[in-house]
């Protein structure tokens, strides 16, 4: 019984450490700001030579034209999956679905908008 509990406890600790979810703020900082900017205004350090300017996440007008599902798809499968720029890569191997859902809500917070 003690042995069983030990293995269960070990498994629980291991699971938490392997699957620990990052905050949307940290994921945004890590993967999004390089193009979308520290302030989310689409003016990240990478934009100089881009043929398509990254989306301004603070622009309520344009962001309200996208559904949560579309934003989720764009993050997970990349810009090309929603017929937008290939410069937006797919993050599906980097982020869990739950983390992407959190990011979508983070974007809604940044634009202070919902889909109209």
């Amino acid at each position, binding site marked *: 019984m003690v042995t069983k509990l030990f293995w269960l406890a070990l498994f629980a600790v291991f699971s938490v450490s392997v699957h620990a979810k990052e905050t949307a703020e940290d994921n945004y900082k890590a993967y999004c700001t*390089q193009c979308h*900017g520290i302030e989310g205004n689409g003016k990240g350090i*990478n934009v100089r030579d881009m043929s398509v300017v990254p989306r301004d996440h603070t622009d309520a007008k344009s962001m309200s034209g996208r559904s949560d599902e579309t934003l989720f798809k764009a993050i997970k499968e990349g810009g090309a999956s929603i017929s937008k720029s*290939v410069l937006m890569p797919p993050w599906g191997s980097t982020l869990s679905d739950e983390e992407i859902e959190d990011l979508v809500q983070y974007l809604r917070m940044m634009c202070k908008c919902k889909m109209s």
Partner: protein
Amino acid sequence: MMRMVMVVLLAFSGTALAEGGMLQGSCAACHNITGPAAQTLKDAFAKKGPDLFYAGNKYRQEWLVSWLQKPARIRPAGMFYGGHVKTGSKGDEIDPSTLISHVALSKADATSVAAELMKLKPHNDLIAKEKIEPGSVPRQMGEMAFNKFLGCMACHLIEPEYGGFSGPELYTAAKRLQPEYMASFIRSPQAWDRKSMMPNKQLSDGNIQKMVHYLETLSKEGTNGN
């Protein structure tokens, strides 16, 4: 401060360091030489230099020997760009005052450190899965892939003055990196570093081969390969 600089300089000036001693001491201050890779973003943000615990799977030894004697920046915005960026009048810009230059080693130390680094091969399993066939990709085709099809230029300089700044420059990649490593890393960056900033673009075997061939073409063009 001056004392700290002296200590660092002294630490790097000794040629009588025992084999492997420099790795365990000075290098380990900024590089992860034991693994595993960062498991959280907080740890990834704190990285001062690339992980070296799989250096023997990653780098070309002759490049290491050369670069360590005359180090030049490979990542324009530092190891984690987020720590080296500030807002400017036209948008975000790199804050050079926050970037740290790599110390230069003597030829003897560079040779010794490179030899030690090449022994670090915990990912032979990943390397063994890759086989690079001989081949080449026309310049125009490669450029199209980097620009239009794959979008590598968004984060990487694909020429000295063209591309993004958050990732390491690509036009010198094949000078620095073993071809099998490039293939494996393109195939799955997360297999090497769970918190890698590089996305997995789900490339086919054929396209991975083409990318490696094109990176090799780029690096042979005589641009600043160090």
